[in-house]
């Protein structure tokens, strides 16, 4: 073969491989392109996000990994960014927290040790605001009011009107910084921020930090999750 023929052969091979690669890329793009009328993301993406969750949970996730805490001088204004499930004001004195068939009161929660933490509250949109929250550890709450609950795979939460709901994995629920909070920046929670009781879970994005909790369930079947239905990663772990 002449050098020219050899060059032509190499070039032909190269462009055939590149063309085949382009077809693979186009096929891949088609497979993971969201359907226009579907809020959810295509299942191949969902599967890899599930794989990512497994990797994180089996490697770097640990109760010893705490999110950074800040001095109170670092606190900034936290805007009300979502009002799903809390559009209408409620009568706080009539509020009860439903756990199984037990309606609990605020006094039940106040009987548990109080923890105060100033953390960087991270929104899934990308911004974050240093905010101070106080309340009881979810792990303490579970031990007292839902014996055996810590053995379940998932914990689910709903607002009293059931229009906003989240579910989290048990290890994250048990994380020492995961609080059922009733105070923000040293004051009782306002209704805009989820009075009388909200979830504060700094190892997750803000979308998991459900406001105005009406009920909590401990289960091995993953409870529904509002933003997962809108295409977001269920784990949403930081």
């Amino acid at each position: 073969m002449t050098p020219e023929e050899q060059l032509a052969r190499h070039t032909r091979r190269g462009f055939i491989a590149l063309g085949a690669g382009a077809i693979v890329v186009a096929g891949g793009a088609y497979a993971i392109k969201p359907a226009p009328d579907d809020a959810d993301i295509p299942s191949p993406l969902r599967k890899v996000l599930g794989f990512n969750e497994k990797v994180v949970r089996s490697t770097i996730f640990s109760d010893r990994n705490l999110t950074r805490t800040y001095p109170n001088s670092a606190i900034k204004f936290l805007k009300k960014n979502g009002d799903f499930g809390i559009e209408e004001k409620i009568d706080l004195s009539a509020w009860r927290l439903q756990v199984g068939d037990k309606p609990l009161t605020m006094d039940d929660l106040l009987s548990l040790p109080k923890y105060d933490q100033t953390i960087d509250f991270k929104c899934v949109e990308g911004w974050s605001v240093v905010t101070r929250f106080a309340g009881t550890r979810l792990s303490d709450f579970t031990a007292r009011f839902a014996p055996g609950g810590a053995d379940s795979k998932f914990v689910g939460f709903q607002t009293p009107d059931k229009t906003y709901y989240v579910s989290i994995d048990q290890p994250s629920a048990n994380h020492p910084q995961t609080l059922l909070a009733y105070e923000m920046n040293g004051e009782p929670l306002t209704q805009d921020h989820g009075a009388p009781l909200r979830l504060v879970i700094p190892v997750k994005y803000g979308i998991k930090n459900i406001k105005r909790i009406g009920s909590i369930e401990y289960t091995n079947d993953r409870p529904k999750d509002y933003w997962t239905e809108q295409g977001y990663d269920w784990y949403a772990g930081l």
Partner: protein
Amino acid sequence: MKVLEEKHKLATRWFHWINFPILTAMIFSGALIYWSYDPYRIGLGKFTLFHFFPTRFYEITGIGYQLAFGMALHFVLAWIFAVNGLAYVVYTVVSGEWRELAPDRNSPREALQVAMHDVGFKVPMPPQGRYNAAQRITYSAIVLMGGCSLLTGLAIYKPAQLHWLTALLGGYEWARWEHFWLTMGYVGFFGIHIAQVVRAGWANFRSMVGGYDLVEQK
């Protein structure tokens, strides 16, 4: 008499052509994510020279209201970006090809000559191996930037579990800012790279695909 010469190794071409669509998709999905909180700008105090990005940019590109999809795409394709990039670095080190790529002490001076030559000054091109000095510096920098994107990305992906990394990079907000500007660096690189490829001509592009070119026998 012309003879066949290998210009780019098969492995290098694979790494390059895998990286190209993946990095493009990472930049695109990154933009979908950035849209939902887009505070960065060039400016001083109250004066803003340019805001990333103007509404018009989002309208033209159709970027917006796809945060969930953007995040999913980003955290899925990041695997390919990372594995391909790390494999490239390992290959380059093990094969010894890093010697043709890493800048040496003459590179900064020679790169200036190359740049002046390329923009039209009557400066001779300095002698070169596979890559000229400007290419050595740029291509090495782009590999380093890839590593930095991986690290800053992990720092904002898992700021709680990798808190030490996030702290090392200056905290959550700084890590996001760094991640953004590294990306702007790729966009700038892409523009210059394409211009240079066009200028270098067909035989050069062909050699990046097929690997070979004809040269005069010495």
